[in-house]
């Protein structure tokens, strides 16, 4: 029990650090509170829960953000294919939240339901407490940046950006100022008269953002907007997007299948698979504390092994018992054990150590990927020092780096983790 708490506190420290690094630290802590709330509820008994929640409530209260969008038990099927199920999610004002998952996980459908392009089969979408489930897209205070930018090819840059304000019946002066502001925001001052079809991919992307932002939406939906750009441009646009989010205070809901994108930009990440939300949390949270094998495997590289929880803080892997920091599991409970490749240290073989043979070494520039076969399992290890194939080594992991996850219980979750 204390192990978990220790870990949580460790996390608090790291989010605080990150908070000072970005513009909006308060946001991190508030979202962190919500995410931890879920994990905590599962793991802690009622008494401790109340104490915990008091501690965190006091801490979180003054930083707490206003709820903006609430998805309530949303489900959606296309024909016989269920693309979303049991979706409950709260999105806060001004946060940068990312829906992350493999293709077909339902993230785009969820975005389209928020945008009004799809109607959920069941459940409700609340915006500022009002039910907007049946409201058409043109009447929602939400704008979208589409994957293929979807600029109007028969209009120039200025006409594209002023499309929304014109429809809304704004004055010519207002529109001119707004277009100017929006172009400045995306660093394309003076591009008013350019032909959109002659712009580069990155520029078209910026125009698409400007066209959406100019309407002063409460929420900006971004559907894999960077996927068509090359790597360098993508990196630059990530910084741009975070800057625009902080500068305008508009809530960003960002859809991607790229975990690097999700981790580097978001205040919170929603990991999805097969129509279900797998985990909601800060980037550090989903990376360091994956709730199940899917999240562990999808985000970053992982070694995931079957294990049995012998008692609190002792887990049995490949017939041997190791110390860990997790508690609260029933005795002899089968679990998934996750160990990050960068958390494994290689040392010379030792008599009673966990020994193996190096089978493959790949140099990546900053580090090596080293495969080590031990106990019939191929371990992935990341290290800054290289090894040679055939070398005998021992593997060492610090107890706090052994992450214990409960096995999927319901049939649904089983399916969800089948990928």
């Amino acid at each position: 029990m204390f192990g978990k708490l220790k870990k949580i506190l460790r996390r608090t420290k790291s989010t605080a650090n990150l908070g000072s690094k970005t513009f909006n630290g308060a946001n991190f802590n508030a979202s962190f509170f919500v995410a931890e709330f879920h994990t905590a509820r599962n793991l802690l008994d009622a008494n401790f829960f109340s104490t915990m929640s008091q501690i965190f409530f006091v801490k979180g209260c003054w930083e707490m953000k206003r709820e903006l969008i609430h998805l309530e038990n949303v489900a959606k099927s296309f024909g016989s294919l269920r693309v979303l199920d049991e979706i409950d999610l709260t999105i806060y004002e001004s946060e940068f939240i990312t829906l992350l998952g493999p293709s077909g996980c339902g993230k785009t459908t969820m975005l389209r339901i928020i945008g009004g392009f799809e109607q959920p089969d069941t459940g409700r979408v609340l915006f500022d407490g009002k039910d907007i489930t049946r409201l058409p897209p043109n009447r929602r205070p939400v704008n979208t940046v589409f994957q293929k930018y979807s600029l109007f090819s028969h209009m120039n840059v200025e006409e594209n950006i002023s499309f929304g304000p014109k429809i809304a019946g704004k004055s010519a002066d207002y529109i001119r100022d707004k277009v100017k502001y929006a172009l400045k925001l995306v660093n394309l001052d003076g591009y008013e008269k350019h032909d959109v079809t002659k712009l580069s991919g990155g520029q078209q992307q910026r125009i698409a953002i400007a066209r959406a932002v100019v309407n002063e939406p409460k929420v900006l939906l971004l559907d894999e907007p960077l996927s068509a750009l090359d790597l360098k441009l993508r990196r630059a646009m990530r910084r741009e997007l975070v800057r625009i989010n902080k500068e305008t205070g508009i809530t960003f809901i960002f859809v991607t299948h790229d975990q690097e994108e999700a981790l580097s930009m978001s205040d919170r990440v929603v990991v999805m698979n097969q129509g279900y939300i797998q985990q909601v949390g800060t980037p550090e949270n989903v990376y360091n504390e994956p709730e199940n094998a899917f999240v562990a495997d999808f985000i970053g590289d992982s070694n995931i092994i079957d294990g049995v929880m012998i008692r609190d803080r002792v887990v049995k892997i490949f017939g041997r018992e190791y110390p860990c920091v997790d508690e609260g599991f029933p005795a002899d409970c089968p679990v998934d054990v996750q160990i990050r490749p960068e958390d494994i240290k290689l040392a010379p073989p030792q008599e009673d150590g966990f020994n193996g043979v190096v089978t493959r070494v790949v140099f990546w520039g900053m580090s090596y990927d080293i495969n080590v076969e031990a106990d019939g399992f191929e371990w992935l290890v990341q290290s800054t020092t290289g090894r040679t194939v055939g070398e005998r080594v021992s593997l060492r992991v610090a107890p706090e780096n052994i992450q214990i996850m409960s096995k999927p219980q319901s049939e649904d979750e089983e399916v969800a983790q089948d990928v």
Partner: protein
Amino acid sequence: MFNKFSRNVLLTPFLIWAGLFIFVPLIFIVWYGVTDNDGNFSTANLAMIFQRGFWDALVLSVELALVSTVICLLLAYPLCLILTERQRDNTTIISLLFILPLWMNSLLSTMAWQTILEGNGIINQLLRLVNLPTLQMINTPGAIVLGMVYNFLPYMVLPLFISLSKIDRSILEAAQDLGANAWQKFFRVILPLTLPGAVSGITMVFIPALTTFVISALLGGGKLLLIGNIIEQEFTFQYDWHLGCALSVILMIFIVLNMLLTMAFDPIKEEGDAA
């Protein structure tokens, strides 16, 4: 792919085709149009268009062709919008069913309209059955317009359908997302983007409607003469080729104007050229 010499060899058949079979024949028409029976230059035949019967036929032709083109445009837009908006399995089949009547011989199906519309035709028999007064439908301008719309509607639908289905769904969603309602979406986004298709459709309908002689012969009962009927008669009954060609030259003016209109909108883009 080839060197210049073999390229030019391969182009020869096309150049012969274009020169001998497209341009020389057109020069023949103009030549006949501006000469008289003795082969002397004369604009008398061209001036004949201002004679009462000919002028009336031309005016009637332009009027009916314009009306049919507008009707085709008004019918085709909603039809294509409905057909492109539903992205279901059966869309292909439905679309094919709309093209299918093209394979029915157009002379016979126009003839069938005669059976439907005439004094003792299907519609009037049905009216009589329910004791309503019968209608005079055949041999009216309206019947000719109906025949034109029937025959040429697919030529409007096809280019419109193609240019509509080229519009990415997300473009329409973007318009809606930015606050446009259904009308604003149509007039500000769909219409401008499908304009080339519409222009190509207008040309494809207007020219055959302007120059037809079959539809007017079948549904106009030989009383309503279009310019096409008069030209055809000059060749098959009157044997005044010079007059027939002169009238054709007048028609060619309309056709050239139409071609210029089409080229201004350039619906035929070279795909893959940019790649």
